[in-house]
């Protein structure tokens, strides 16, 4: 760099500082930050509901909330966390920020669509808040019929409209990613050279594009039945309640993979960098991502093993569920093998990534148990299932999200976060998480059903432990909010490539200029050119990283 630092170089953050320039920005990096603000807000709303739930369950008869309020709380927790945090979390923030940077593009293919996606997301968010203030909804996030269409007394239609609109934001973002990854890769960025995070976002986007419309149709039908009495799901009107479950899970099971696939991508980037080794089995990893995306569409019936589907369908869906576990297992083995003969450093992003691998493995193995037909008969709709999917979604996806946030924080903000605090938060999050959710496996096998506002007194020990863990987890989630905010103001300035990583995003300044790269980079090599012996690496544009 020859520039003499008289003026600070213009970055995407300092380019123009007016409110209007942010609210009308077409820069994918600024839109990523806008999304970041929105989803963080909703994360704390969903977290607040979770806190009330766990506080309520400290005592067996749960004196804190009235039954109807408790039912509304877990419904809000589910709706907010699924559609307003977990599904958009990684794609709209880190995905938005990194996809163009990692493939050497100057922006996403449709910058205006990207901004529109944020506005649509917020529109649904405002409706959600309205629905909450009016009194909420008590169906559970799953909206099972005929309860939701004929018996629930909350704002079911408002909730359905909220989620319906939210889906369009998902579709817009996914479409943008698919076109961008197809059309805007820098010269030399062949598919075989794509970083695994890009592969993950690509696979995720395909699932989003294909599954979300089915959710929209399902919600529309709920509205038709509830408002106009069109008999689709309610047997009293000639409908079929199981039809709803088929349609809902046809979307909602792939939705789980929408949450976890991007997390797998993030973890692959982080593990390779902090082990200073090429990721083990790159090709296998890409096929595993695609295999998960495809098979995820064929397993929805495993939510219905006890619902009265035929024994034959139960058997088919169980088989498919075991098959989808194979590529997931392959990924765990590959991350483990990447550590072998690495040169491993335990910075905060790596702690989060290792936490992800551990918790995801736990979630995956208990997933085998609930995929086993005869065991699911006992375990389904109990706390065992609650624990299982929180290990995948919170232990897995949220850990990876925090790992990615720390890893790219210097790139996004140009500042370094305080390492000690970040490591402490990562460890606290891991411990708090396990204390919260491990007791729920035991509660589940003991037979405590989910969505119970009161439970048998002898189960109080495990519930108190779980609630204690939840309070630790709450503190661990608040810590990054504090020290990351601090680092925005006081953190040390970051160099372009503080981790000595190989991705193209590290080959531009921190934070990047508005146009990302002064010149479109020329890609000459595969990702993850790390040498564990020397710790050196070669970036994807062929330069030695420094």
């Amino acid at each position, binding site marked *: 760099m020859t520039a003499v630092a008289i003026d600070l170089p213009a970055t995407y953050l300092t380019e123009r500082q007016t409110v209007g320039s942010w609210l009308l920005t077409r820069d994918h990096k600024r839109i990523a930050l806008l999304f970041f603000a929105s989803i963080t807000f909703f994360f704390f709303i969903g977290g607040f509901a979770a806190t009330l739930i766990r506080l309520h369950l400290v005592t067996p008869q749960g004196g804190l909330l009235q039954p109807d309020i408790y039912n509304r709380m877990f419904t809000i927790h589910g709706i907010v966390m699924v559609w307003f945090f977990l599904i958009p979390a990684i794609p709209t923030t880190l995905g938005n920020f990194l996809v163009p940077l990692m493939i050497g593009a100057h922006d996403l293919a449709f910058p205006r669509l990207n901004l529109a996606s944020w506005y649509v997301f917020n529109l649904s968010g405002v409706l959600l808040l309205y629905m909450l203030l009016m009194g909420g909804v008590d169906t559970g996030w799953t909206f099972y019929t005929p*309860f939701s269409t004929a018996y629930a007394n909350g704002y079911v239609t408002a909730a359905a409209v909220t989620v319906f609109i939210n889906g369009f934001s998902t579709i817009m973002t996914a479409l943008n990613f698919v076109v961008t990854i197809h059309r805007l890769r820098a010269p030399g960025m062949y598919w075989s050279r794509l970083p695994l995070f890009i592969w993950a976002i690509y696979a995720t986007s395909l699932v989003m594009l294909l599954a979300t419309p089915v959710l929209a149709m399902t919600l529309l039908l709920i509205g038709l039945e509830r408002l106009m009495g069109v008999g689709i799901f309610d047997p009293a009107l000639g409908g079929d309640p199981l039809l709803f479950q088929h349609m809902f899970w046809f979307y909602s099971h792939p939705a789980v993979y929408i949450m976890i696939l991007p997390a797998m991508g993030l973890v692959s980037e982080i593990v390779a960098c902090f082990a200073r080794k090429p990721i083990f089995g790159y090709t296998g990893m890409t096929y595993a991502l695609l295999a998960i995306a495809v098979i995820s569409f064929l397993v929805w019936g495993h939510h219905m093993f006890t619902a009265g589907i035929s024994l034959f369908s139960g058997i088919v869906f169980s088989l498919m569920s075991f098959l989808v576990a194979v590529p997931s297992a392959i990924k765990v083995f590959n991350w*483990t093998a990447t550590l072998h003969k690495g040169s491993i450093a335990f910075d905060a992003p790596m702690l989060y990534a290792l936490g992800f691998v551990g918790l995801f493995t736990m979630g995956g193995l208990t997933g085998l148990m609930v995929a086993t037909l005869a065991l699911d008969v006992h375990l389904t709709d109990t706390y065992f299932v609650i624990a299982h999917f929180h290990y995948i979604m919170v232990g897995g996806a949220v850990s990876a999200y925090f790992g990615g946030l720390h890893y790219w924080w210097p790139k996004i903000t140009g500042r370094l976060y305080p390492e000690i605090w970040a490591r402490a938060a990562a460890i606290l999050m891991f411990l708090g998480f396990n204390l919260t959710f491990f007791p729920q496996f035991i509660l589940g096998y003991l037979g405590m059903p989910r969505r119970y506002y009161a439970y048998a007194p002898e*189960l109080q020990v495990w519930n108190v432990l779980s609630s204690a863990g939840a309070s630790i987890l709450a503190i661990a989630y608040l810590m990054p909010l504090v020290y990351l905010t601090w680092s925005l103001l006081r953190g040390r300035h970051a160099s372009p490539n503080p981790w000595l990583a190989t991705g193209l995003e590290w080959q531009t300044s921190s934070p990047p200029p508005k146009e990302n790269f002064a010149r479109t980079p020329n890609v000459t090599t595969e990702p993850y050119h790390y040498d564990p012996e020397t710790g050196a690496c070669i970036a994807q544009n062929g330069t030695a990283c420094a």
Partner: protein
Amino acid sequence: MAETGQWVPFWPKTSALSGDRVNTLFIAELVLCAAILALVFGLIWVFCIRYRRGNPVPRSALGEKSWVFEIGWTAATLTGFLGLFVWGAGMYVWLYKPPAADLEIFIVGKQWMWKVEHPGGQREIDELHVPVGKTVRLVMASQDVIHSFFIPEFRLKHDVVPGTLETMWFRPTETGNFTIECSEFCGTEHAHMGGQIVVMEPAAYTGWLTHQGVNLSLAQQGEALFRQHGCSGCHDANSTVHAPLLTGLYGSLVHLSDGSVVRADEKYIRDCILIPRTFTVAGYPPVMPSFAGQLGEDEIMKLIAYIQSLSPAAASREESTR
């Protein structure tokens, strides 16, 4: 929830045939998962310590044999998973496919209670008395939303979906009281929709049955309804209307006018009462009116019990061929 007798409840008792088998499978998977977890965590732990940055150990790359490992562990996991699948699927079919039952009891779920109708006409709410060591078959209906009949100590549950009949079976292996829960969210008092199964010695059970002060069996109550609602006007042997006779119907194969053949089980009889035009019997005119909205789920069950009682031989033959 189950009274486990443990200081801190950790493991629920198993008190039925299904409970024992599912429990064994669970323990097997638990051991297997713990082994896999130990392997993965062990390797991560060892690698993290041995290959921590700054530790002077050789790090030269492995040979180019990575695909051997990849194919190896892919094949191993696939084989292991298929094994679990087969074990679980076999047991699922056994759990959900009822054998010949010693006793058939009707259950109606509604917000927020379980109503029980015994064949002898005894009724109870949120309690279900059964004899130990006998195969009990439950025929379940819901009057409003989806519920789920869950007995943790039997490791058994089945959803009760409105608009249809569901069946489940169990064979208790010990006497005692065991918790029933509703495990599908059904509204405000979902958490309190439960009760208990009281498993008794056969003699005590017979005693309990006779002390319920019942005059009419379920089938006799059904017969009264059969006349009251005018079913007998067409379906009696000496009726002038050309309608299918119901004697010997239950358990037999019925040829429908659309050419299909169905087994006349509880679900079929229920559907014929509520949506008769979908099930017009071959050779008969489609004249039966629907009784949807006129009969409660418990009344339908009484009618089914009556129609079952018209073909005792067929019922037992049908059970034994399952």
